[in-house]
Structure formats: structure tokens, C-alpha cells
């Protein structure tokens, strides 16, 4: 069972929700897909961490073999290649590692080298398998890392898996939720929060994922995100209060369900609601096509 946690912007509570759900589940996987600014490990403080470099393939052109036909340059839709001064220049930052240039080369002048773009790591914290990755500074895209994390997470199937998505609703989020069985959207009680909720809601709906909303930082009074859920018939899975105690636990890098009875109950109940929804969905809609699994 794979549960993705997402939100339209950063700072809404994705990590709070996904870390605490995984901790409440006890035996689970937590995957931090925010490879630009990972922070789940700050809470789990995983042990027995193993690291692995992630590389992408970059073309290398043999100048002696190259006949200057420029088919590779014309083929590259990312414009990562140029042919000037009698030779091919490769712009590594722009290359998307599709391998097409090597395929179209009529004289086999193009081979590939591996370029390290970051690393993924895996550790353990109180029964929870903690996976995450981090991009090397200056890299343009975290996509190769997220793909690696997804492949690695399917190495131990059957576990409850929580996917802490990058913020927003862009490519990295789409890749992170791709094989999810369920999407949990976290939203703040502001007009801006409701607008961000709308952007992820549209994404989740577009791909037809079963979904629900967790309202975070709840105060008495008006909640535009709650209103958005009511107006659109979106299930509200639970509410987390705007609470000083929770803020203090979190600011100290602790996990609320491991520190507080009240929060162990709150996230335990939230977890049961989500599991019930997913089971219901898998009965109604049994075969989702997976990419990695």
C-alpha cells in the first residue's frame, strides 16, 4: 500500500504528516522525495545508513569516428548538442539522457559516460525504513533521484509506504505519486492555502488517484481550505490543530507520535481512516497500472 502526501506549496505539513503516519504504522517505509531540500531524516535520525550514488548517462563523441553528418544535433529535441568548428559539443546540463543521439549516429561515434547527479540513502528508525536522496549542488533536476528511490522502494513490496512529495504540482510531484494507491493532500487554513490545495487537487483528479485532505494548522473560525473541500465534495481525513505543543516537538526534531499520547492517537486514527479508504478503493478499482512495481 503506497500513500503519497502532497501539497501545493512548501511548509504546509507534508513532512509532519508523512513522518508521523509512518511512525504510527510502526513497520513501514518512509520515502523523502523532496530531493532538493530533504528533511524527513532530521526527524527519523535513521541508523545503519547506506548511501548510493545516482548517475545519468551523458553522450561522449569520438571526434575521429564522427563524420559531421549532424544527425545527432538535429535529433536532440533538448538542444543539448551543437556542431561547430568541425566537432560536436555536448551541453551536459541540458542533456536529458534519452540516448537518442547514440541511436541515430550512423558511424557509432557516440558512447555514454556516467555523470553523478546526487545520491540516495537508506536507513532504519524504530521499525521504519527511511529512504531519501539529495541532489548535488547546481544540478537542474531531481528526477533521476526520484526514479531511483521509486525503484528501490519496490525492492521490499507489501509494506505500508509513505511518500513525502516535493512541494508543488510539477514534474517531480507527478513522478513521486505515479505508483501511489492513494494521495493525501495537506492544506493550510488560508485563502492562499486553499489556492495551493486547488492546484494539487486538479493534478490528483487528472490522474484519477483516490484522495483525501488533511487540514493542518487548524484554528477556530474560517478555514478556506475546509470550505474548498466541502464545495468540491473532497473527503476530509482529519484535522491537525495549530498547537504550541506540536510546534515545540517538531521544532526539536522529534516525532509527535513517539513523544505524545494525544498525537499518537490523532495520527493512529488518521492512518486507520486512510487504510480503510485505500482498501475500499482497491476493491472498487483493483488493477492500477504501475510503472516501477
Amino acid at each position, binding site marked *: 500500500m503506497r500513500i503519497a502526501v502532497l501539497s501545493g506549496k512548501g511548509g504546509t505539513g507534508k513532512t509532519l504528516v508523512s513522518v508521523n503516519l509512518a511512525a504510527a504504522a510502526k513497520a513501514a517505509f518512509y520515502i523523502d522525495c523532496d530531493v532538493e531540500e530533504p528533511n524527513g531524516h532530521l526527524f527519523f535520525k535513521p541508523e545503519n545508513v547506506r548511501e548510493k550514488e545516482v548517475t545519468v548517462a551523458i553522450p561522449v563523441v569520438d571526434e575521429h569516428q564522427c563524420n559531421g553528418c549532424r544527425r545527432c544535433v538535429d535529433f536532440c*529535441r*533538448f*538542444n*543539448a548538442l*551543437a*556542431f561547430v568548428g568541425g566537432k560536436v559539443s555536448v*551541453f551536459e546540463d541540458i542533456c536529458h539522457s534519452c540516448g537518442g543521439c547514440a541511436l541515430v549516429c550512423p558511424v557509432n561515434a557516440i558512447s555514454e559516460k556516467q555523470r553523478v547527479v546526487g545520491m540516495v540513502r537508506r536507513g532504519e528508525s524504530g521499525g521504519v525504513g527511511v529512504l531519501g536522496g539529495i541532489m548535488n549542488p547546481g544540478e*537542474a533536476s531531481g528526477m533521476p533521484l526520484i526514479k531511483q528511490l521509486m525503484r528501490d522502494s519496490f525492492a521490499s513490496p507489501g509494506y505500508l509506504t509513505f511518500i513525502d512529495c516535493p512541494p508543488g504540482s510539477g514534474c517531480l510531484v507527478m513522478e513521486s505519486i505515479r505508483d501511489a494507491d492513494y494521495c493525501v493532500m495537506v492544506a493550510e487554513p488560508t485563502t492562499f492555502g486553499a489556492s495551493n490545495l486547488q492546484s494539487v487537487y486538479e493534478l490528483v483528479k487528472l490522474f484519477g488517484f483516490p484522495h483525501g485532505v488533511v487540514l493542518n494548522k487548524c484554528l477556530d473560525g474560517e478555514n478556506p481550505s475546509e470550505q474548498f473541500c466541502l464545495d468540491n465534495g473532497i473527503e476530509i481525513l482529519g484535522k491537525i490543530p495549530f498547537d504550541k505543543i506540536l510546534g515545540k516537538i517538531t521544532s526539536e526534531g522529534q516525532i509527535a507520535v513517539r513523544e505524545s499520547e494525544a498525537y499518537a492517537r490523532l495520527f493512529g486514527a488518521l492512518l486507520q481512516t486512510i487504510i480503510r479508504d485505500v482498501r475500499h478503493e482497491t476493491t472498487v478499482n483493483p488493477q492500477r497500472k504501475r510503472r516501477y512495481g
Partner: protein
Amino acid sequence: MKIALPVNNKSDDTDICVSFGRTPYLMIYDTQTKQSHFFDNAAADSPGGAGIKTAQFVADQGVEAVLTPRCGENSAQVLKAAGVKLYKTTGDSAAGEIEKFAAGGLAELNDIHPGFHGHGGR
């Protein structure tokens, strides 16, 4: 000698475009014949690497100098490899800048920016 300019319109009285890689049109002017030709820039709306593709086109036309208000590092790398020199424009009118260039009044462009890479910016 052929020179190229990023321009906003396909006419001799056009303004210069502030972006090299994503300019809608390129003006190629021959200083001997005093003839100008206009080309659509096929790279104007490519998802990435626009500067590389624009620079490739300019180099393929046998251009020896580019007059532009600014240029990104990828475009500059291609142009440099092709032996194309870069000159910094100081006014808006293409015709005016060609005149200044012919009189030796334009300095070489050295402040190559790191590129906007999908973030536009004018």
C-alpha cells in the same frame, strides 16, 4: 562580412530583441552588399537549450559577428567555438547599431550571463 542581430520584427526599421536565444527573428546583414535578410528563429519557443540552437543557426549562416544587448553562456560557448565575435549593442534600433558597428563604435560583449534557463526575464 555577415553580421546577425536578434530582432523583434522582420523589417529594416526593427528594434533589437533583448533576448538572443529566444528572439522571434534574426536579422542577417551583409556589410558588403548592404542587404539584410530575416529569418524566423526556430528555437524561440523550444522547451530548453534555445540559446544553443539559435547560436547553431547563426554559425551555420556563416556569420562572423553578432550584435546583441546580452548573451547567455551556452550561446556564447557555441558562438565562440564557431569563431563568431560578440558585440554589445547600446541602442534599440537595428539599423542604428549596424551603423555604429560599421564605424567601429561597438565594444565586444564580455558580460556573459549564466542564462535564464526557462525562467525568461526581460
